[in-house]
């Protein structure tokens, strides 16, 4: 689906926005290639919607330039830009029926025969039957699809989506995620999607930019962001991470050996985003599902070369497909482990002494100068 045509690229350079003394977006550079599904992910107030609105022309940037392909659009009003937006809560025109809502953009550009195009577009979003209804007569999911159809019918170079699924319930949201992804593949238009839902961003987007406090913290494919977070914010905001404070001991080949508590941990140097000098501090991270749990009595069976930590099970909850354990360990008071329920060891109950071990290749290293809990609070806030 990807083409080398760059006429649909979105290029932001040094774009920033301040309101009085408050900086909503720090000058940032971003290139979204033609035909990609790009997500701006972050908690509320991180500047992601402001960035989107600057691309749409609904917000004037304080600094920097916006390019669509080769055209500079920084100071063009929204009605002169070849982009369209799907608004949060849809903003469908309440006085017009579905057909006229979808035809609105075509009519404003002076296109006379809109019937065929509008019908085809309503077919694409499976709303052919509803053409003569008013927006308030449709369900939330249907309204959402009208909003998408109303934007897509104009064949914009870029489609901007501002939390388009925020108002839907969980089941419908999952369904619409797949639907949007299908439509994007079908029409091949660049989509820029703003969301605070990390799962949504990861399932839909080719590239995700994680934003925090007006800055892009990290940019990459969902797998890349999840496996190799560069900051504690990304590590905590995308899924769950166990972070351990450690001290650099020695280097052997491509690996760094670290001291944490009484034990030693191995970290591939390529997976460490922090400077490593002997004696310096580093945060060692590992995802909960990468860890195996073995009862302390069987510690001898663990193969050599794995990172190990000892601890005591503080809590366990059975989720069905997995069991989630919280381990109290000397190096980290609340170590999380997600174990698949393949062979359940009946001895793994709260109070049991255990050894946690994992492949060193799954370890990542972060700069210890950061707040170890950055990004944790935001996730909880949104879940509440």
């Amino acid at each position, binding site marked *: 689906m990807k083409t080398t045509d760059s006429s649909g690229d979105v290029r932001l350079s040094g774009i920033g926005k301040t309101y009085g003394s408050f900086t909503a977006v720090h000058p940032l550079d971003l290139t979204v290639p033609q035909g990609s599904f790009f997500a701006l992910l972050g908690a509320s107030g991180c500047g992601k919607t402001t960035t989107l609105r600057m691309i749409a022309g609904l917000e004037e940037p304080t600094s920097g330039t916006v390019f669509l392909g080769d055209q500079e659009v920084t100071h063009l009003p929204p*009605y002169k830009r070849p982009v369209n937006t799907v608004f949060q809560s849809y903003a469908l*025109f309440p006085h017009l029926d579905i057909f006229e809502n979808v035809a*609105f953009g075509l009519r*404003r550009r002076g296109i006379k025969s809109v019937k065929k195009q509008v019908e085809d577009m309503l077919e694409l979003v499976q709303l052919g039957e509803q053409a003569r209804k008013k927006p308030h007569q449709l369900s939330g999911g249907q309204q959402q699809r009208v909003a998408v159809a109303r934007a897509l019918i104009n064949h914009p170079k870029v489609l901007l989506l501002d939390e388009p699924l925020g108002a839907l319930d969980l089941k419908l949201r999952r369904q619409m995620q797949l639907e949007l992804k299908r439509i994007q593949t079908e029409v091949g238009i660049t989509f820029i999607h703003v969301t605070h839902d990390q799962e949504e961003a990861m399932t839909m987007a080719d590239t995700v930019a994680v934003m925090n406090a007006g800055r892009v913290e990290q940019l990459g494919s969902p797998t890349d962001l999840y496996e190799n977070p560069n900051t504690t914010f990304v590590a905590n905001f995308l899924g769950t991470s166990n972070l351990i404070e450690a001290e650099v001991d020695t280097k052997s080949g491509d690996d760094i050996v670290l001291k944490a508590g009484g034990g030693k941990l191995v970290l591939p140097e390529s997976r460490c985003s922090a400077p490593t000098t002997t004696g310096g501090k580093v945060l060692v991270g590992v995802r909960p599902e990468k860890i195996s749990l073995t009862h302390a009595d069987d510690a001898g069976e663990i193969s050599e070369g794995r990172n190990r930590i000892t601890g005591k099970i503080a809590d366990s909850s059975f989720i069905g497909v997995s069991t989630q354990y919280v381990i109290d360990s000397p190096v980290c008071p609340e170590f999380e482990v997600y174990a698949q329920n393949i062979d359940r060891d009946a001895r793994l109950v709260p109070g049991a002494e255990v050894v946690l071990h994992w492949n060193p290749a799954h370890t990542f290293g972060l700069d210890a100068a950061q707040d170890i809990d950055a990004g944790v609070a935001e996730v909880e806030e949104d879940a509440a």
Partner: protein
Amino acid sequence: MPFVNWLKRHLVVIAGLITLGYLLLPNVVVTVFSFNKPKGRFNYEWQQFSTDAWKDPCGVADMCGSLSISLQIAFWATVGATVLGTMIAFALVRYRFRARGSVNSLIFLPMAMPEVVMAASLLTLFLNLGAQLGFWTILIAHIMFCLSFVVVAVKARVMSMDPRLEQAAQDLYAGPVQTFLRVTLPIAAPGIAAGALLSFALSFDDFIITNFNAGSTVTFPMFVWGSAQRGTPVQINVIGTAMFLVAVLLVLSSMIISNRRNRQKA
């Protein structure tokens, strides 16, 4: 006790009908007496059925002239107050300016002021300015007291309007003028229409302010008041009934149109 049960079940309907009767009884009297053939000059006692007055509604000297003046004033007062009031309402909702708070409360003052006081003060003002009393002074006064009502009606509507709708219109290639004509105005229309209807009704039957500032011009309410001293022609009832019928017809036809439209869409 089947009767008591029946009463319990229908009490709301009965209360509603009684209230409606209370509201509409004067209209019924007006209508009935428009078919009266009074003996003397006063149309206060029922004598016999006649359609004389309906056949010759303008048979009373000067009455239709005063009616025409009242309709003209009401029309222009409605246009003036609706245009100005709508603009004030938009300014108050959309823009943050220094005197916004005080303007917001000043708008309500004319509604709270006793009409008779306002009428007298207006007269003082016009006399001091050396204005010629007549059609124009009445129109200026009417636009003034209708304004507040339009502002209140339109403001409520504009306040409840999602600003994203206009952004969506702009995003869909509508320039500022198109956005206003295609989105803003149609959505604000019910509020504007309510304000306009209210203005027309208020202006058409205003007596006190008009009477003070009319000079030698006679509006329909002034004519009715004046003639009531010497005798009430049946034609007054005819005009009253006709106005009532026009209003009822307008309401009914708008209901039928919107019903039909909904049925077509469903």
